[in-house]
């Protein structure tokens, strides 16, 4: 059966007819077909040169032996080497030496700020001024002292973290665990309010003195100034971690507190931890000894 030719275009028809309408059998345009064949050829080349298809216990590795996993490991190592060179000083000097070099701030602060924002800002805030439950890192009030080494160590092991050498800071649940009666807790709260010079009931505060000495001083120190050995905060200043109002204090004493600062030694390199330590020192305090 020879297909019929259309007299006007000279092309064959498909041979079908619907209500007197016939259809031309026109092939798709040349350019289109060419493009299709080029794509097929490129795909075939990919099969030859790049890893393509699995079989049995292995896969076609491709003539170039390319592996995206190896490529990224090389790229990351190169990046780290470049950084090690650019930040050479953080690799070779310890934090105490670095802290004596204020000129580093102008040179590196911008880069380190990125590291800070990726890892620390969620808790301590973009400006490092903290928020309820997460300490301000720019003021002179430290839980574990503001000396460069101690800050570095805090970053490495964390506080109440999953790290095996973590610093531990636990404020007991005085109310829930019934260390003290509710009335006694009220008295201690008035005493704590008096320590920081806030409005308080002087009689109740006087009753609280002994209770504080017996129950709190072992950690918070006789005068309530806290201690760097156990991370107990100074109660005489206005830098509150969990708030200093009567209601906040009641909450703290009733349920206890144990803020968690994650450990970073597994996530960040030693040099990165040094950079962040310096970054914190630059954020406005630097009084390592108080």
């Amino acid at each position, binding site marked *: 059966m020879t297909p019929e030719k259309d007299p006007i275009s000279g092309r064959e028809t498909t*041979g079908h007819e619907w209500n007197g309408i016939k259809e031309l059998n026109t*092939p798709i345009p040349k350019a289109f077909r060419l493009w299709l064949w080029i794509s097929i050829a490129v795909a075939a080349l990919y099969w030859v040169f790049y890893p393509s298809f699995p079989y049995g216990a292995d896969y076609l590795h491709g003539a170039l032996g390319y592996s995206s996993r190896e490529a*990224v490991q090389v790229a990351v190592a190169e*990046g780290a080497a470049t950084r090690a060179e650019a930040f050479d000083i953080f690799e070779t000097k310890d934090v105490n030496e670095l802290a004596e070099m204020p000129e580093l701030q102008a040179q590196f602060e911008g880069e380190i700020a990125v590291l800070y924002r990726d890892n620390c800002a969620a808790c301590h805030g973009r400006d490092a001024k903290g928020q309820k*439950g997460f300490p301000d890192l720019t003021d002179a009030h430290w839980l574990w002292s503001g000396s460069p080494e101690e800050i570095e160590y805090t970053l490495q092991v964390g506080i109440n973290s999953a790290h095996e050498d973590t610093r531990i800071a636990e404020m007991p649940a005085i109310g829930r665990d019934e260390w003290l009666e509710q009335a006694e807790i009220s008295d201690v709260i008035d005493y704590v309010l008096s320590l920081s010079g806030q409005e308080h009931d002087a009689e109740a505060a006087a009753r609280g003195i002994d209770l504080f000495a017996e129950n709190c001083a072992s950690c918070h120190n006789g005068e309530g100034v806290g201690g760097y050995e156990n991370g107990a905060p100074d109660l005489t200043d206005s830098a509150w971690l969990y708030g200093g109002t009567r209601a906040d204090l009641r909450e703290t004493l009733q349920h206890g507190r144990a803020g968690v600062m994650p450990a970073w030694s597994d996530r960040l390199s030693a040099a990165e931890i040094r950079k962040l330590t310096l970054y914190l020192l630059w954020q406005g305090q630097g009084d390592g000894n108080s």
Partner: protein
Amino acid sequence: MDHAKLERNGIAFALAILGVASIGGIIEIAPLFTIENTIEEAPGMRPYTPLELAGHNIYVREGCYACHSQMVRTLRSDVDRYGHFSLAAESMYDHPHQWGSKRTGPDLARVGQKYSDDWHVAHLAAPRAVVQGSVMPGYPFLSETRLDTRYFSEALTAQVRVGVPYTEEQIANAAKHAAWQADPEAEYEDDLIDAYGDKVQIRDFDGNPNMVSEMDALVAYLQVLGTLVDFDALNPEEIAR
């Protein structure tokens, strides 16, 4: 072109269609037959505990994947920011996987233990209360919703059907295991470690000891992401592909 012949022979035409369509099919399906050697051997990888699995299901239910990927790609920028690139093995127990295709927020493949439970609870309840300018929606109801553990054994059985190796004992005790993991006072630590290995995290994740909530489950899930594989023990040849 001569399709007249094919068009007039129905059976031949059907066979031709079948032949062409199966080329595509084979190319897609054949790799699955070699999946055993596609997935790396990753020391430390284990199925989710029932509590974590519930968290995974809440993650899917709430559509967190619409804004978060769980896939550290083999790109330098990804590895520098999030850590080791993701392995196939790390999502082998995810049904469905949560690789995602969009990052409105950061990748979560390695978020486990980056933040504290308290932070997650505060952040999930009201993201803008802790992260200035965040566009993440809040999920405060999770803390108030008791975790429904009635069908946990069935949930584990469903996972077994798609290839997750839960044991009979794990299936039978699923609801109990979930409650124990969120209650450090329960003192069943040894049982949980027996069942799921020593990396199981036993804590009151949401800070409310009176109830095992959906927040407990979601935070337990977030805290385990990316923490299971022991990368130091990984055979470098195993992952070089």
